[in-house]
C-alpha cells in the first residue's frame, strides 16, 4: 500500500443489483464521513464491474455493499470474487438484512463483515476499520 499512513480510510459504497432501498446506505455514508473516512458513493444499480473500476480509480480501502432483498448469498460472494480477480486486496462489508443462519456462508465467501439492522455509528465505523486492518493478511 503506497498511501500515506495517516491518510483517511476511503470506502466505496454501492447498491448491488436491482434493489432500490438506499436509506441504510445513505445513513452509513454519513456515519463513515462523521467517523473521518472518505466516502465514494456510487449509489444505485451498480454491477461488480462498476464497483471494481471505482475501487481502482479511487484507490479505495474497502467496499460497502447494501442489499435488502435476500440477494446477498448470490451477490456478495461475486463482489469478493470480482475484486480478487482484479488483483485487489480490498475487503467487502455487507449491510442489510442478512439472517444469522447466513453469516457463516458469508464469512466463507470472504465477506469481511456484515452490518444488520440497528447497527450503531460506532459499530459501522469499527466494522470498516477492522476489515481494512485485515488487508495483506
Amino acid at each position, binding site marked *: 500500500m503506497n498511501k500515506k499512513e495517516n491518510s483517511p480510510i476511503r470506502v466505496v459504497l454501492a447498491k448491488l443489483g*436491482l434493489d432500490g432501498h*438506499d*436509506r441504510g446506505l*445513505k445513513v452509513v455514508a*454519513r*456515519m463513515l464521513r462523521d467517523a473521518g473516512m472518505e*466516502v465514494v458513493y456510487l449509489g444505485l444499480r451498480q454491477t461488480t464491474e462498476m464497483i471494481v473500476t471505482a475501487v481502482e480509480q479511487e484507490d479505495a480501502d474497502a467496499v460497502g455493499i447494501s442489499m435488502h*432483498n435476500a440477494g446477498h448469498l448470490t451477490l456478495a460472494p461475486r463482489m469478493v470474487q470480482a475484486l480478487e480477480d482484479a488483483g485487489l486486496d480490498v475487503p467487502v462489508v455487507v449491510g442489510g438484512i442478512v439472517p444469522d443462519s447466513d453469516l457463516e456462508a458469508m464469512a466463507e465467501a470472504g465477506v469481511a463483515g456484515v452490518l444488520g439492522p440497528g447497527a*450503531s455509528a460506532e459499530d459501522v465505523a469499527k466494522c470498516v476499520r477492522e476489515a481494512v486492518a485485515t488487508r495483506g493478511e
Partner: protein
Amino acid sequence: MDEKKEFRTMSGVPVGSVYGDGPLPGEFPYTRGIHSGMYRDRLWTMRMFAGFGTAEDTNVRFKDLLRAGGTGLSTAFDMPTLMGRDSDDEWSIGEVGRAGVAIDTLDDMVDLFADINLGQVSTSMTINGPAAILLAMYVAVAEKDGVERSKLNGTLQNDILKEYQAQKEYIFPPRPSVRLVSDVVSFTASEMPRWNPISISGYHIREAGSTAAQELAFTLANGFAYVEAAQAAGLNVDDFAPRLSFFFNSHSDFFEEIGKFRAARRIWAKWLRDRYGAKDEKSHKLRFHTQTAGVSLTAQQPEINIARVAIQALAGVIGGTQSLHTDSYDEALALPTEDAARIALRTQQIVAHETGITSVADPLGGSDYVEWMTDEMERQAEEIFKHLEELGDGSILEGVYVGIENGWFVGEIADAAYRFEREVNSGDRLIVGVNSFTEGGDENIDLLSIDPGTEDTQLKRLSEIKQSRDSDSVETALNRLSLEASDPGINLMPAIIEAVKVRATEGEIVQALESVFGTYVEKAFV
C-alpha cells in the same frame, strides 16, 4: 345494514355512532372520516400483502389468506418484475422470486390467480414502473375467465413520482412515465369503473426516512400532480378523481399518525374542490390504505414487533383507514412465514372485533391535542406545497418534476433519516430491544426460506413460452407499441393488452417503450 342493531360497550353501555359537533364524519372537509357511519357500516378491508417464489407458490398463499378471513388480495412482485426485467435478464440473477412473486408473461399471471374468482375478489398490485403491463395482464386473465373488465375490483399502485423520491423503482424518465400513468387513469375511467388506477403512496417516502409531515405533504403533492397531468390530458377531474386512492404508513408516534390521517382528508377535500374545481363529493373524499411501519420492526427480540404492529394498526383504524395491512413480526429478518402472517392478520381482527373501536366514528375528534396535531400537520404540509409551487411557477406537477431533478426530495428524506439515526445512536430516542431493554429473546425464530430452485423453474418456464409462442405476432405487437409510444396523443393500454395476449414478456414490452422513452438514471447523491 340492520338499523335496529344497537352498539354497546363490553359492559352494556349503549353508545352513539359519533360524538361532538360538526363537521361530522361524512361531511366536508371529511377531517373526521369519509363516511358518517364509518366502521359500523363497513369494516376496513383486511388486505395482507403476499408474494414469493413462483406464481403457483403465491397462489397457494393467496388461497390460504382468503380462507383465513382476508377480504382482499395484495400482490408483492419480485425485484426483476418491479423493474420491468424478465427472469432471464442478467440483472435478475439471484433475485427471481426472492422478495416477491416472479411474473414474466401472461401465463404466470394466469397461475397467480388460478381458482380465484376475479369478479368477486378485490386485488391490489404493488407495481409502478411497469404498472400498465401488469394491469394489462390482469385484464387479459379476467377475459380468459369470462369476467368483464367493468366488474374488476382492485388497485394498481402505479405511483411513479414517489419512485424518484423514495423507493427508486423507476424505469423511464419522469415525464413519459407520468404519461403512462395518465393513460392508465383514462383507460380505467372509461372501461374499469371499479378500479383504482393509482394508489398515491406515502408509505415508501416514510420508510425511506421522511417525517410524518413530509410523508403527508409529498404524497398529497404527488396526488395534485397526477390531477394536473390528467387534466392536461383532457380529462374532467370528476371523471377520475373519485377513483384515486392513497396509501399511508402508520408509524409508532400514535397521535402524530392520527393527526396526519385526519389532515390528509381535510387537505385533499379543500384542494380538490377549491383549486381543481371538483364538484363531485366523491372527488373530495380521500380514501386510503394503511400499512404498519416496516422500518419500525426490529431484528432484535422480533416477537415484540407484534406489540408495535398492534399499536400502529390501532392508529390507522382510529385515523379512519379504508384498508389495512399489518406487518409480520419477522419482517426485519426475512419475508414472513405463514404463521407470522397469520398473527398479523389476527392482530387486525382483535382490533376490529374486541376493542369496541368500530362502534364510534373518529373517537378522538374534539380532543384538543388531536385537533391541534391535525392543524399542525396541515400547516407543515401547506408550507411544503408552497415551496413546490414556487419551484414549478405555480404548477405543483412542474414543481414535483423540479424537486425530483434537483434532488430536493431525496435530500430532505436523507436528512430526516440521518437525524433519526443520530437520535437513536445518542440514546435520545429509545428503541426497545435496540438501544434499551436489550436482554432476552436471543433464540432464533423460524424464518421463511425461498426454495433456491425457484429461479431455475421460472427460467425453464420462460424459455418454453418463448419457444411455443407465435414470434411474428409478438414482433408485430411490440412494433405497434413503440410506434404508438412516440405519439403522446395515443393511449397505450390497448397496445399493451394486445402485446401481453400474444405472450410478449414484461421485459420485451418495457424495452419497446424504453426505445422511445429512454431510461432514468439517478444522480448519485448522499
